[in-house]
């Protein structure tokens, strides 16, 4: 296979996809062919260098491979497991299935629930956005479709895990979540591959649709191997009174670019967008965020916290957009960076676009080292420097970390922090 029209048709026929989906893939492929590689002339890519990325090198799909079995997750309401590009298993609490909850591979749901997928798939994460989004929409391998009917409340989280182990391939999973009116649940995507996996191309995009008064927690935890190229979009649409708590956790990949966007389309909608990122070695992370207040009485609260060490670099650029009619909206945005080495560099660019005066809006960015007073205080009590630094970094992430609604994910993050901080 390759990133060709023939490749598009092969995937579609492999899954037996309906015509509308093949058509959608073909259109995305046209966009992919038409759009140039972004260059540093484009504002969004000014600090983000993709000139070293030769996508053609990674145009083979990763198949289910030799990686060992996933650890069985406990305390979950459902799981979707993917290896490389293939779905391995889907499990859902039968009681929830009985209540009308749908948890299926997208390749299956395209046939069983066309009324939802045909209207929604790739309407938030759009192929036209850039060449990478187009590639993802044309060639996405498969992924999770979750539908939670009106009024259904799920206490335990539902978890999607994508494992990769081969390198040299493309791994392009997609997530589509539809939350019915008044539904409440938490969903986590975990993207995992061994740290030393050879370079490959990975996406991992998610579209979320929150119906009226739905309350959804969404976590995307990216821990691909340290050579990967990762380009992904996470975008949510919120109807009236819906509330979203989104957590982006970025730990892996050599190059990672993620857009995190919330589109507040109904009065009373509320989006909380949080991130934890830790860049080490030669990692480069780029985050572009959008808090799009399209109507009034909406609220968004963004907090992106990152730590950097070695020669890592990060770029955060966040836009708050408040449209003309969106009076009495509140928007907050903060990006905090803890720089643990002299050679690491964090760039933070807040942007505002406000067409209404009757709003409350604050933003702030900080970039700085560990406070030497904090370090001295801990060390003066006998705590060794490495331990003290680790405690300070863990403390820095603590307020975001403790709100991630799944113990397994929190532990995974804590273990990674500890491993990196010696």
């Amino acid at each position, binding site marked *: 296979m390759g990133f060709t029209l023939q490749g598009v048709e092969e995937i579609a026929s492999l899954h037996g996809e309906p015509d509308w989906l093949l058509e959608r893939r073909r259109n995305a492929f046209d966009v992919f062919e038409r759009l140039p590689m972004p260059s540093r002339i484009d504002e969004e890519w000014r600090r983000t260098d993709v000139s070293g990325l030769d996508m053609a090198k990674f145009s083979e799909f990763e198949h289910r491979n030799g990686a060992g079995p996933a650890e069985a997750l406990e305390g979950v309401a459902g799981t979707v497991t993917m290896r490389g590009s293939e779905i391995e298993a889907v499990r859902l609490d039968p009681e929830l299935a009985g209540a009308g909850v749908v948890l299926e591979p997208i390749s299956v749901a395209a046939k069983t629930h066309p009324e939802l997928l045909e209207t929604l798939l790739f309407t938030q994460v759009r192929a036209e956005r850039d060449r990478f989004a187009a590639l993802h929409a044309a060639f996405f391998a498969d992924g999770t479709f979750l539908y939670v009917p009106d009024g259904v409340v799920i206490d335990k989280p539902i978890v999607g895990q994508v494992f990769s182990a081969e390198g040299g391939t493309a791994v392009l999973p997609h997530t589509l979540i539809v939350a019915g009116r008044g539904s409440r649940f938490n969903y986590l995507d975990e993207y995992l591959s061994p740290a030393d996996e050879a370079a490959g191309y990975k996406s991992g995009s998610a579209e979320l649709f929150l119906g009226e008064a739905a309350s959804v927690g969404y976590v995307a935890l990216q821990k691909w191997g340290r050579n990967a190229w990762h380009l992904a979009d996470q975008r949510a649409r919120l109807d009236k009174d819906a509330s979203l708590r989104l957590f982006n956790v970025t730990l892996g990949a050599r190059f990672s670019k993620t857009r995190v966007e919330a589109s507040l389309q109904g009065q009373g909608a509320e989006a909380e967008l949080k991130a934890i990122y830790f860049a080490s070695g030669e990692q480069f992370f780029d985050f572009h965020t959008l808090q799009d207040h399209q109507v009034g009485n909406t609220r968004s609260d963004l907090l992106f916290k990152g730590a950097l060490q070695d020669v890592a670099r990060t770029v955060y650029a966040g836009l708050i957009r408040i449209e003309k009619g969106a009076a009495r909206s509140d928007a907050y945005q903060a990006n905090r960076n803890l720089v643990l080495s002299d050679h690491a560099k964090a760039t933070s660019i807040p942007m505002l676009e406000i067409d209404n005066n009757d709003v409350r809006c604050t933003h702030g960015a900080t970039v700085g080292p560990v406070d030497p*007073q904090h370090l*001295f205080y*801990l*060390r*003066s*009590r*006998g705590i060794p420097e490495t331990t003290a630094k680790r*405690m*300070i970094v863990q403390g820095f992430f603590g*307020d975001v970390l403790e709100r991630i609604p799944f113990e397994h994910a929190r532990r995974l993050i804590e273990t990674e922090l500890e491993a990196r901080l010696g």
Partner: protein
Amino acid sequence: MADFEIKDLRASVEGKEILKGVTLAINKGEVHAVMGPNGSGKSTLSHTLMGHPGYTVDGGEVIFKGQNVLALEPDERARLGMFLALQYPVVVPGISMTNFLRTALNAKRGYDGKDKSKQVTPKEFRSLLKSELEVLHMDDSFLPRYINDGFSGGEKKRAEILQMAILKPEIAILDETDSGLDIDSIKFVADAVNRMRGPDLGVLIITHYTRILQFIKPDFVHVLVDGKFVLSGGPEIADRLEKTGYSEWAEADEPAVLKPEEVA
């Protein structure tokens, strides 16, 4: 040879010479008070002894357990048995008092995350905390809070002494632990320190005012002016300062007792 010997210690801050040759010998079992007007170098002395990176040692040595501690990192000094109660305790967001105290105690006992036998057990830790909290009239609502976060001035100072009580140092330096405290808090703090007094502990109590010395009786008093001791002797020196203040040293004409309206 005393247990803790400061010899001709000279130190500067941001290129400015502050300590101009301080010499002092402390034995375990003794309480020494260092008194001095504002800006005389008291906190410079306490920070330099503990190895704060903002203070530069220009000369001298500090010998404790056969080592020149000036060559050690702050955490090494602490594990060797030194403790500094800061004049201005630091707020560290994100780390709970419990985590802080437990990690510090484990570090003191040489637990490095491997040899579990050195680790303080939850039960031992709880009972240790409970008895020390009682002495200091603190309740355990402190423990889940972040280090000194939102603590009042008095709570911060008491929390410093709580740390001292748990870490059981052999040389404790208390830097103006009394300043900003109401009389009750001073009594609680003094009770806690007096309980720890004994043959295993040497104390250097730094203060501007004589008040705390009514509760923690010093064996020796030293007066620091402009980075040097100008007078050393027994507790009678505190009485003398109580009357005359620092006026004997012309450029430091400050009282050494609080004005009635300053006594909370």
